[in-house]
């Protein structure tokens, strides 16, 4: 009762990074609240994952293991998650803001009539006093997220309904293994009474998984282009600089929407979150939509014609100039000075 739940997402029998990140955050929240952290694993041949989950802080590992649960389908996973939450009554339930989490967490929240906050960038326990009723709450989950295209930061609370549910994007929170693993006690979910025949009505008839071609998340150097790069051709310069420096190419949403580059490269609130050693922002104005996904970079260099662009406020070095002028010089002086 009243524990913290984390839904564990499995990709090719491996635990998704975002689930381990959520366990790390969940451990911290559970410690603050003085409750247990419980992982929920729904899939096929997943029992062996418990030790890994314990390493990231899971006191309990709930398991539903059957072929109907893999590959992921909305309805069976929803049925088990709803059934288990009704049985165990956690106060918090966290999901990855992945295509899987964003598909079924809203459905779970609707079935339980509890609120769900999407794409949180921060989760904190805090007090709350309801402005209308005056009722006071000790320890609610502050669900913090950018909203309105990233122009505001909203703190959302869920005073009355349980569990308090949130999704978090991959890479937003840190994952950290414990020095001494938690208990990781495996408990089997009695899922058969939870799943109805109609929950199996949607059939998967074909499935193709592509290799990940672009690896922005793992890159220690990222050269990212924004709308200010101006064109698809202009993006070639961004690629050249990334190649020379041994980095990857990223992009802002505006550049992706304008068709300058592929969607897989989008960094920001609705894209990937990155923390490279060096981030070079080319022609990126720096709306929070974008900076939410890169402001954890160790060093930020910005190239922008507008010296007052918001990006210059978070940059370590702000170069006032055009991408066409500055990038070739960076390439030239890098080549001259490296070796």
């Amino acid at each position, binding site marked *: 009762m009243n524990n913290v739940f984390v839904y564990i997402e499995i990709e090719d029998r491996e635990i998704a990074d975002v689930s381990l990140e959520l366990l790390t955050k969940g451990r911290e929240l559970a410690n603050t609240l003085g409750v247990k952290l419980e992982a929920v694993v729904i899939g096929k041949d997943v029992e062996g994952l418990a030790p890994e989950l314990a390493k990231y802080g899971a006191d309990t590992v709930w398991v539903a293991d059957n072929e109907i649960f893999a590959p992921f389908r909305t309805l069976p996973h929803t049925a088990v998650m709803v059934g288990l939450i009704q049985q165990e009554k956690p106060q918090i339930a966290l999901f990855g803001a992945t295509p899987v989490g964003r598909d079924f967490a809203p459905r779970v929240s609707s079935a339980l009539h509890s609120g769900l906050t999407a794409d949180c960038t921060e989760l904190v326990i805090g007090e709350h006093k309801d402005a209308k009723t005056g009722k006071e709450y000790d320890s609610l989950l502050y669900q913090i997220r950018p909203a309105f295209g990233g122009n505001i930061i909203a703190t*959302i609370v869920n005073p009355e309904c349980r569990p308090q549910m949130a999704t978090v994007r991959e890479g937003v929170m840190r994952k950290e293994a414990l020095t001494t693993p938690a208990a990781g006690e495996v408990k089997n979910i009695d899922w058969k009474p939870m799943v109805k025949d109609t929950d199996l009505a949607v059939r998967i008839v074909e499935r193709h998984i592509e290799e990940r071609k672009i690896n922005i998340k793992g890159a220690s150097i990222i050269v990212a282009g924004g709308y200010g790069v101006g064109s698809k051709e202009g993006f070639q310069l961004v690629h050249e600089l990334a190649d020379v420096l041994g980095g990857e190419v990223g992009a802002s949403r505006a550049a992706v929407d304008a068709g300058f580059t592929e969607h897989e490269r989008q960094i920001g609130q609705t894209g990937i979150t990155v923390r490279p050693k060096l981030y070079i922002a080319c022609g990126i104005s720096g709306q929070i939509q974008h900076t939410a996904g890169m402001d954890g970079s160790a060093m930020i260099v910005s190239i922008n014609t507008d010296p007052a662009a918001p990006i210059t*406020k978070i940059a370590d*070095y702000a170069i006032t100039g055009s991408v066409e002028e500055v990038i070739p010089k960076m390439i030239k002086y890098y080549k001259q000075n490296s070796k």
Partner: protein
Amino acid sequence: MEKVTKIVVMAKQVPDTRNVGKDAMTAEGTVNRAALAAIFNPEDLNALEMALQMKDTLGNATVHVLTMGPQRAADIIREAMFRGADGGYLLSGKEFAGSDTLATSYALSCALRKINPDIIVAGRQAIDGDTAQVGPQVAEKLDLPQVTYAEELVAINDREITIKRRLERGSEVVVAPLPAVITVNASAKECRPRNAKRVMKFKYALATSELAAADDKRRAFIDERSCLHIVEFAAADVDPDPTQLGLSGSPTKVKKIENVVFQAKEAKTLTADDKDIEALMQELIASHTLG
């Protein structure tokens, strides 16, 4: 007579948050919503296209748009009619103000119970919230299966629908029984453009409350042509449980809103001169940030 398949597209009129210019922020640093254009949510246009494709394939089908919002949201219903929709429903009322996603989904599900469609299609998410919650929540409220991230309509008949959907890395083809809720990705086919003849015809279409404010001549004109009448539902028309509407029906509460103010840190400002760029590259190499 063969059954007519009723397709409803859930769409939203949204502020164009992708084009937030300088005038979109007030002097106090708050968002000036009035300065943002109200547009048809982009992925809802992809949804409209897929719905029209369903109609093209089935032949005997209708496409209507359902939107919740103020009176001016009727604009997107007219826009959809210009592009091929048969008509629409506007769900409007002060009872809906302050709805979070769950209360929104509940209100839409009440309207959908009245309309009783065979297929519900919606954009994956709206650009003003980016939550992607309303589609799945409506599906749950109506106890229907859902197919999210639809990219391509593969096949449809009056019993089931086959959809290719996007995964994080890859795609899958699923078959769902009807009725079902389908949410459509931006990577799906772009919406067909306006049709000039349809624009000439449907620009006169009005929702009930707009009609009430129109002059007698326009009213008489529309009264004779039911296809120009956009159905408007008030809260009472869709038989809701009032406690589940608006603010009181929203489990999530906004505790605090902060306008984004960038914390200035010690940024070194450089020019595009060779001297500055060379010094920077040397420094990055010396600090092992590069190389």
